[in-house]
């Protein structure tokens, strides 16, 4: 057979070409080689991403009451990490520890452990808290624009730093509003009151204000809980874009939101970290029964 085929083919093609055209055993093997699914390798890459915030055995107290018990896990750079758990589980407390917002509450203290951002202990006495909060921005549950114009809201942080150069401020306003997907909607009314914006726009303005000072990390405490579904989608799309440049930590009560927009999900219960894993693992097959009961609404 082979000789017949070779003699037939040699009339039209050089023999070297013909050799290549015959399927070799090697190509057959390639077909049977199991291929790692993209999602699986992507998940591994995420879990092995560089650490930006290292939370190390943190105990936290409100007066005598211990709100966090030995919290110990890393937050990965340029990923979205969602904190979920029932009310009072300590997720917002932990979030506020990350930029020392709890310093503003009397009687609070970190009883043990440390939180390091890029290797620096943020509770070290030498740390400048204002500088820290510039690096670790925050967006709150209820949008809280200042009763000023849209423009002044964005440049507020820069003015505090003594920056008054109009070109620099204009550039920051446009960059931040574009970054928060709000530019097209407000470019014609930058000098009108921010309070005239819709709820969803106000929340995106707060995100724009947070990114105006070019932080590394953005903390979001239930950023969509007061928004309608359309505004929620816009903020979620924004989160997706922002993670190219920033590390985002989001606290949410909306399970589907955590599922949709985070890469890694941490589940807290009664001041303890119960489980942390790639988001799809948490929502399809969590290891801990408490996690499953919570995400599927079976608590209580």
């Amino acid at each position, binding site marked *: 057979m082979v000789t017949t085929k070779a003699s037939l083919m040699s009339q039209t093609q050089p023999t070297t070409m013909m050799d290549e055209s015959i399927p070799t055993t090697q190509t057959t093997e390639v077909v049977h080689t199991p291929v790692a699914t993209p999602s699986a390798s992507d998940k591994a890459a995420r879990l092995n991403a560089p650490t930006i915030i290292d939370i190390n055995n943190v105990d936290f107290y409100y007066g005598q009451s211990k709100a966090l018990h030995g919290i110990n896990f890393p937050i990965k750079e340029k990923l979205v990490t969602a904190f979920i758990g029932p009310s009072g589980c300590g997720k917002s407390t932990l979030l506020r520890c990350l930029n020392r917002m709890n310093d503003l509450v009397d009687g609070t203290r970190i009883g043990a452990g440390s939180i390091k951002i890029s290797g620096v202990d943020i509770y070290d006495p030498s740390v400048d808290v204002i500088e820290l909060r510039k690096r670790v921005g925050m967006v709150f549950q209820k949008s809280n624009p200042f009763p000023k114009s849209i423009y002044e809201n964005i440049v507020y942080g820069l003015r505090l730093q003594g920056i008054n150069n109009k070109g620099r401020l204009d550039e920051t306003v446009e960059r931040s509003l574009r970054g928060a997907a709000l530019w097209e909607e407000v470019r014609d009314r930058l000098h009108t009151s921010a309070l005239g914006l819709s709820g969803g726009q106000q929340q995106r303005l707060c995100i724009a204000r947070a990114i105006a000072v070019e932080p590394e990390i953005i903390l979001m405490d239930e950023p969509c809980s007061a928004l309608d579904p359309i505004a929620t989608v816009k903020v979620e799309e924004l989160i997706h874009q922002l993670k190219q440049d920033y590390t985002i930590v989001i606290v949410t009560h909306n399970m589907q939101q955590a*599922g949709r927009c985070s890469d890694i999900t941490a589940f807290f219960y009664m001041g303890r970290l119960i489980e942390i894993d790639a988001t799809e693992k948490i*929502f*399809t097959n969590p290891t801990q029964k408490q996690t499953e009961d919570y995400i*599927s609404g079976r608590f209580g």
Partner: protein
Amino acid sequence: MTTTPSNAPYSNGPASEQIANIRETLLLMASLANRNLSLAMRALVERDEKLAASVEAEDSQLDELEISVDELVINHMATHAPVATDCRFMLVASKISSNLERIADQAVSIARRSLELNKEPLLKPLIDIPRMAQIAEGMLRDSVTALIERKPELAQEIIKRDKEVDAINKQLARELTSFMLEDPTTITRALNLTIVARCLERIADHCKNIAEEVYYLYQAIDIRHDRTPTS
């Protein structure tokens, strides 16, 4: 903290009702499929035309139930966005219902063949076919038990029994072929028996599919197509 077992009914509320409703519909389908298979086999063995007719008559009920399971599933997914075990249950419920409906279809085929076979005397005593049916019925019963009692290990065990049914089917097909070669007057009967055996082999396949779905539901590991639980 008080918690309920995963995928156990919620303490109350519409989510609980919907999931319970899907479970109950599946159980109803399983018992009807089981009953139809038994009736079809009795129709064959006892050469009873009335029983054969009843299998055909009851099949439409399973068709309706298959559709209603899918309606319940899509309704629950759209309104409750289930996750984890609940989410797997939605996928699995739809597949199990479709397999149960097909088991009932195969029972109808067996009943129809039995009507044909009744027109002539028995070709040979029925030994292998009732044996296949017995294994298949056991697989069906156990796959439902594995679902209700949350026993993935039982589901895994059922899968192995499918090979037994396959082996009997092959052996019987060879035997019936030799009948046909020796005496062409046996061809109609031998072919009808071959088809009945094939139906039972298919039913065992569907039971295997159900068992694989049950394993996936409780272990979150897909073992279809001979994938081992570790892969």
